[in-house]
C-alpha cells in the first residue's frame, strides 16, 4: 500500500474515532452517571444541528453557530425537560426509557412542524487538503479537535473543579452526599443538562457534513448506545477506548469491503466484547479511571 493511501486511511480512522466519541459522550454522561437510558439522545443531536442551521441562517459567525450555540441551547432544553419530566422518574429505568422515547417522538414532530420535513444544511467552513495523491477534508480535523476538546474539558471539569468533585460524590452515593449538604436533585439536573449540551455540541459539529432532517437522530443513536455499553462505567476512559476500538474496526472494514460489512464488523466486535467483558471495557480494566 502506498504511503499516501495509508496516510489517508489513518486520517479517516482518526476522524471516525472522533465522530464516534463525539456522538457518544453526551449519552455516556447521562447513562454513566445517572443510569438513565436517554432514547432522545439522537434528537438532542438533531436539535443541536438545527440550532446551527438557524444561527448560521440568521447570519451569525459559522464557528459560533456550530460550536457555541448548540451546546448552550440544547443544554437549556435538556434542563427544562429534566425539570418537567425526567426528575419524577429517577430510579425507574423502564419508565425513563418510555418517557425519553416519547420526548424523542415529540421533538421530531415539533421540529417537523416548524421546519418541515426538509433536508437542511450548513456550509463547511474550511476547505480540503492533500495527502499525496488524495484529497481529504480539513473539516475532519475540526471534528477531531472538537472531540479532543470535549473529552479534555469533561476531564478537567470532573477532576479539578469543586463541582466535579460533588458530582462524582453524588453519583457514587447520593444519600451520603445529601447528608453532607449537597442537593442531589440539583446535581442530577446539572448532569442531565451537561449530557444534553454535549449531544447538542455533537449535532452542531456534524451539521456541515450531514443531511439535517428531523429524523436524523435515528442514524446515530444505535452506534452511540453500542459504544456506551462497550465502554463500561468509566465515562471518559470507556468512551475513549470503545470509540477507538469500534471506530478503527468500522472504518478499516468499510474501506476494505462495504459500509454494510463495516457496520456488521462493528456489531460483531461489540457482541464479542460484551461476551468477554459483560460490564464493558472499564468494567474490568481501568476501573478507577474517570
Amino acid at each position: 500500500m502506498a504511503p499516501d493511501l495509508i496516510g489517508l486511511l489513518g486520517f479517516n480512522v482518526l476522524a471516525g474515532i472522533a465522530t464516534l466519541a463525539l456522538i457518544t459522550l453526551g449519552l455516556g454522561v447521562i447513562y454513566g452517571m445517572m443510569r438513565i437510558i436517554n432514547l432522545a439522545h439522537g434528537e438532542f443531536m438533531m436539535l443541536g444541528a438545527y440550532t446551527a442551521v438557524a444561527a448560521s441562517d440568521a447570519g451569525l459567525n459559522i464557528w459560533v453557530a456550530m460550536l457555541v450555540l448548540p451546546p448552550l441551547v440544547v443544554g437549556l432544553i435538556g434542563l427544562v425537560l429534566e425539570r418537567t419530566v425526567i426528575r419524577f422518574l429517577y430510579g425507574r429505568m423502564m419508565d425513563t426509557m418510555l418517557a425519553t422515547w416519547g420526548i424523542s417522538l415529540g421533538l421530531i414532530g415539533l421540529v417537523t412542524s416548524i421546519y418541515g420535513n426538509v433536508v437542511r444544511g450548513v456550509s463547511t467552513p474550511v476547505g480540503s487538503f492533500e495527502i499525496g495523491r488524495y484529497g481529504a477534508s480539513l473539516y475532519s480535523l475540526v471534528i477531531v479537535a472538537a472531540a479532543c476538546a470535549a473529552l479534555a474539558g469533561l476531564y478537567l471539569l470532573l477532576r479539578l473543579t469543586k463541582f466535579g468533585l460533588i458530582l462524582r460524590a453524588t453519583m457514587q452515593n447520593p444519600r451520603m452526599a445529601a447528608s453532607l449538604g449537597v442537593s442531589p436533585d440539583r446535581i442530577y439536573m446539572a448532569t442531565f443538562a451537561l449530557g444534553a449540551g454535549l449531544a447538542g455540541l455533537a449535532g452542531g459539529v456534524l451539521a456541515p457534513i450531514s443531511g439535517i432532517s428531523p429524523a436524523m437522530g435515528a442514524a446515530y443513536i444505535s452506534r452511540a448506545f453500542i459504544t456506551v455499553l462497550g465502554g463500561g462505567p468509566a465515562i471518559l476512559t470507556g468512551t475513549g477506548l470503545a470509540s477507538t476500538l469500534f471506530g478503527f474496526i468500522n472504518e478499516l472494514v468499510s474501506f476494505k469491503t462495504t459500509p454494510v460489512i463495516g457496520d456488521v464488523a462493528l456489531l460483531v466486535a461489540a457482541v464479542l466484547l460484551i461476551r468477554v467483558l459483560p460490564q464493558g471495557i472499564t468494567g474490568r480494566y481501568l476501573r478507577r479511571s474517570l
Partner: protein
Amino acid sequence: MTHPTISRRGALKLGTAAAAGALATPFLGRSGLAAEEPIKLGSLLDGSGALGLEGKRMIETTEYAVELLNKAGGLLGRPIKIIAYDTQSSMQLYTQYAQQLALKEKVDVIQGGITSASREAIRPIFGRSKTLYFYNTQYEGGVCDRNVFCTGTTPAQTVNHIVDYALKTWGKKAYIVAADYNYGHITASWMTKFMKEGGGSVAGTDFFPLDVTNFSSAISRIQQAQPDLVLSALVGANHSGFYRQWDAAGMKGRIPLGSSVFGLGDELTTMDASTTNGIVTCYGWYNDLPDARSVEFVKGMQAKFGADVTDLSELDTATYDGIMLWAEGVKKAGSLDRDKVIAALESGISYEGPTGKVTMDGATHHTTRSTYLARPKDKKWEILASFPDQFPADTAGACDLLKNPKTNKQFTPDLKG
C-alpha cells in the same frame, strides 16, 4: 380500543335524519345532483415522514389536476372526487390504505406510490381487486402488469443520456455509488450496462443502506480506484451527506459527478451552490424549462398553493400526466369500466402536458416522452440538451402486454449480454 356503539336515542335521531334525507332526495334528484354521483379517484401518497417533502407536492399536484378537470366539466358529465390517504412513509399503511381504497371505497382509479418498495407492496392488491393503478414517479423500469400504468421516466430514457454525456466529456472509467434497495441495485445495473455498451468500464460499485451518514471510507475507496467519473443513485436525507462530504474533501474539482436522483428533492435550495454545481442529471422535466406549457403548469400551481412552490420536479409532472392520461382514456372509452379504459389507453393515447407530448405505449404501459439533460448552476437548472420522444426501451426489451396480457412481474436488466 373501544368500538362506537349506537344508543337508543342515537338510533332514533339517525332514523329521523334518514327519513328526512329520504324525503329530501326526490328534490335533490330533480335538481340533477343525484345523477352526478362523483367519480372516485384514490390517492396514496406520503404527505409526511421521510418522503413527505416529495409527497406533499405530489398531493398538491393531484388536487390541481383534478380541479382543472372538474372546471372543464368533469369526466362523462360527472365530477371527480379525490379520496386521499396519507401513507406517512410507512409500508404497512400503504397496504392497509390500498385495501381500504380498493375494497371499501371501491375507487375507480388509484394514482400514487412513491418508492419502488411501496409500489411493489400495493401493486398485487390492486391486481387482485381489479382496480386500475397509475404509478407516477421516475423509477428503475421493468414493471410489466396489465393493470398498472407507469408515467415517470425509466433508465433507458434518462440514465443512458447521463452515461453518454459522461463517456463523451469525462472519460471511460466510472465508479458507481447507489442506495441499498431495489431502486439503487437495478439503477446501478443499468448504469453498468450503459457504460459497457458505450465502451467504458466500471471500477467499482458500492451500495449504502439509507441510514449511512459517514461516507469517508467510500470517498477513500473511490479515490483509490481513480475513476474518471462517479455515477450516483443515492437516495434520501442521510445520503445527501455524501455530496457535502465529497465537496468538503475537495473532490468536487477532481472527479465529476452524474446522478439519477439528485435534485428531485430540495437539494438545490438547501445545499451550497459549490456543492451542487455541475452534477449532471437527466429527468423528464425541470422547474426551469422555458416551454409555454411548462411555465403554465408552474404558474397554475403557484396560483393555487402560493408563490413558494419553486421546487416542483418530474415527480409532480408525472403525477399530473398520470391523471390527465387516465382522463383521456376514460373519455375515449366513454366508460369507467377497467377493461374498456385499459383498452383505450393501450390504443396509444397521447396528450400535450407540461413536459411536452406524452404518449402511452400500449405494449409496455409506460410513456414515450421527452427527457432533458441538465446540471445545477448557482441554484438554477442549466438545460444542456433535450431528447424528444424517448421510448421506454428498457421495459420494452422484455415486456409486451398486447401480446402477453397475463404478464405480471418486474423485469430487471440482463447483464450477461
